[in-house]
């Protein structure tokens, strides 16, 4: 009775009878894992990138607003004063600072921007330039002039479409007119309107995002100036939070809600504050799932193929073993042992290569412009470089899935080996 351990040892040794062949096979299998890791990294990374680009034109991954603001957009709904400081402290604290990429308090309102030549309705955003730079993409899309300086008191940054319509250049004069925040309306009376306020601004910079709605309507000005104009000193109506990873959105939102319990605020993830964006990504996410499945299937098949081949070509050897007294079960165990060993080596190789490649893509990124020189839109809205993202969870699940698949698959060839028929297997021709 040959012990299981001995069988496994024999199995191991079998592998090394043909070291070159074995290594090549292991490499081939390992590459499967490598490619799996690379593709997962790129898929996750590109998804991350897409979401981040999109939310940077909007309200970030997580947004805090006064309760009901999402539905009504009413100017009366301001955030209670302590929200900004509480959020700031929390997000910059030990627990959260590694998931945070930036947060920006903002005051949003609509107004009329006039120049000597024309006037246009605008969505104004009072911002803190330093913080806004970490959240919004607009500061990075300046085409003329500069974005607001950190301690700038007065100035405005407008979109290229708006600049064209108003026929203003950097340094030009514009007048911003808006309505100060007023008392809320009641059922019986009409809303009592606040006073109209206006202020002179000089165009500090002009941006171009490529998105018509933004380039024609959005303006940024220093937060204190906006607060003064609207008559709400030290208040804001939105805090936008940008994270390192989209996957943390839910967790951060939940934590913030806990931190801000009792206050009349709403903490929303980007899926809730920008539902159409979430909808457009549903397909993208479903795609990820399906693609993962396909890659796994292909890798699984590769494994099956390889191991099967190994067994089929060693009929003679198995015949010999069988003739010498090894029972079918033991043959099977031997084959499985071999497979496991082979898989282990492959996984090791694959992991090393995969993580190496992934690290390269995570730092240097994959510049998509390489691939599609033709048919590029003139104004690139999104950042064309993807950074690979691979979470430990993903790596673990990939490795274990490949391992399990390999093991499961090796049962079939093991079975075939066990059923080696004598004396057929011994026949040389």
């Amino acid at each position: 009775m040959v012990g299981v351990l001995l069988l496994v040892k024999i199995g191991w040794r079998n592998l090394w009878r043909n070291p070159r062949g074995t290594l090549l096979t292991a490499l081939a299998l390992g590459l499967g894992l490598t490619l799996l890791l690379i593709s997962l990294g790129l898929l996750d990374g590109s998804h991350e990138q897409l979401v981040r680009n999109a939310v940077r034109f909007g309200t970030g991954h997580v947004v805090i607003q006064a309760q009901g603001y999402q539905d009504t957009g009413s100017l009366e709904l301001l955030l209670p004063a302590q929200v900004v400081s509480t959020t700031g402290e929390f997000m910059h604290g030990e627990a959260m600072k590694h998931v945070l990429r930036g947060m920006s308090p903002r005051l949003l309102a609509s107004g009329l921007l006039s120049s000597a030549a024309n006037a246009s309705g605008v969505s104004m955003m009072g911002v803190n330039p330093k913080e806004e730079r970490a959240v919004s993409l607009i500061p990075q899309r300046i085409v003329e002039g500069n974005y607001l300086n950190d301690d700038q008191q007065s100035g405005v940054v407008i979109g290229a479409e708006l600049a064209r319509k108003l026929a203003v250049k950097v340094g030009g004069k514009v007048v911003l007119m808006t309505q100060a925040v007023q008392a809320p309306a009641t059922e019986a009376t009409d809303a009592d309107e606040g006073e109209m306020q206006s202020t002179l601004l000089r165009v500090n910079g002009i941006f171009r995002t490529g998105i018509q709605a933004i380039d024609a309507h959005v303006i940024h000005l220093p937060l204190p100036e906006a607060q003064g104009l609207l008559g709400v000193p030290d208040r804001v109506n939105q805090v936008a939070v940008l994270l390192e990873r989209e996957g943390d959105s839910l967790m951060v939102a939940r934590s913030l809600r806990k931190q801000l319990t009792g206050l009349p605020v709403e903490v929303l993830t980007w899926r809730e504050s920008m539902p159409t964006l979430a909808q457009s990504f549903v397909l993208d996410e479903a795609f990820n799932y399906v693609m993962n499945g396909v890659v796994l299937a292909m890798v699984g098949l590769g494994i099956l193929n390889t191991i099967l081949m190994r067994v089929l070509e060693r009929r003679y050897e198995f015949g010999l073993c069988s003739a010498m007294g090894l029972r079918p079960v033991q043959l099977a165990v031997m084959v499985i042992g071999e497979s496991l060993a082979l898989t282990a080596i492959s996984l090791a190789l694959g992991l090393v290569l995969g993580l190496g490649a992934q690290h390269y893509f995570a730092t240097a990124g994959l510049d998509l412009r390489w691939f599609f020189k033709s048919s590029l839109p003139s104004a690139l809205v999104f950042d064309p470089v993807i950074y690979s993202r691979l979470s430990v969870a993903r790596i673990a699940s990939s490795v274990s899935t490949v391992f399990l698949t390999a093991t499961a698959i090796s049962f079939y060839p093991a079975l075939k080996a066990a059923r080696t028929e004598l004396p057929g297997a011994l026949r040389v021709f």
Partner: protein
Amino acid sequence: MAAIGFGYAMLLFVACLMAGLRQQMVESGTDLVLSDAEVHAPSYYPDRPINQTLGGRDGTDVSALVAAIAADARVEAASPRVYGYGLVSAAHQSAGAQLLGVVPAQEQKITVLQRRMVKGSYLTGRIPKGVVMGDKLATTIGVEVGSEIVLLTPATDGSTGNDLYTVVGMFHTGLDAMDRDLVLMSIASLQDLLRLSPGRIHEVGIKLHDNDFTAATKTAAALETQLSKSFPVRVRAWPELVPELADYVQFNRRVTFILFLIFFLLAVMGIVNTTLMAIVARTRELGMLLAVGMRPVQLVGLIVAEAAILAGGSLVLGAALGSPVLWYLQIHGLYLGGSRGAISLGGVVVGPLWYGRQDFAAYTQAALGLAVTAVVSALYPALRAARFRPTEALRKV
């Protein structure tokens, strides 16, 4: 053989899904109001001055124009539109809104806003001065289905156009810009309000059969050339109208291309492996052939030819296996079910079907690639086999 066949089938599957994905992505961005392409007078877009109508101030034969566009084989449907911007006023509140005048029957062929109704109904011919508006707008001014509203807008003759209308329905798209800002009405009633004669419209919206990035742009250019023979026009396809969507689609396209490459590599590896093994397994047989007198060159030729035939056969097999799946994907789609996880989409129903779309270019490329790979991967071992010493080969067991 199975390796190649199956590998090819997988590639077909992936290519089909990717093409379908691209099309659905575009649709989700254009099917509410935008449509695939738009025809305007040259100075109309983007500022939309209301007097810049197609065909100039005298307008044009609208139905003839729309028919001429729809007659093009690449166009699925076309619909005329008129735009305005004005004040929507109810008993206690008013708000500014964009006014869009359409021909309901034709409009529904190019966009799907009618599927987003939450109260009342879409525009029918029954109430000529009926309007449909976004639910958020309705809430802001405090109206319900059946309420009366006043629309106030500057007309083309300089007067202030105003009239009474009835709210017949409300929609919810999830897009703030529409739910808060859009009022839909019949084209005739908006033309009346703006003092435009019936022959004057601002835009023809077009839905194309193929909304692929390059195809749409080419079709738009062709239409522009064709229509410009009657009067100056600009035809813009969606990549020009929403470059951010075009960017997103292109981004996605590139990523999926890379993935496709990876799959291809996997398939290739499988093939190389198999071919290698197959030849190694035939060492004795090959040695025999050499011993019997076949020349090395002939041996190589034999192996390569075999590989080519095998590849060809496998590809055909793979295509045969794959075709029913591809057909199914195109017609019935892939049911995504619960694979999307916990995503609340604010009341918007998302179709759980992922439709595939045939991408014959990709299919052919994949086939060629695999065939070449199979042949090339046979080459190395073939060359090695050619150098066998017959006696050694025969001895191998």
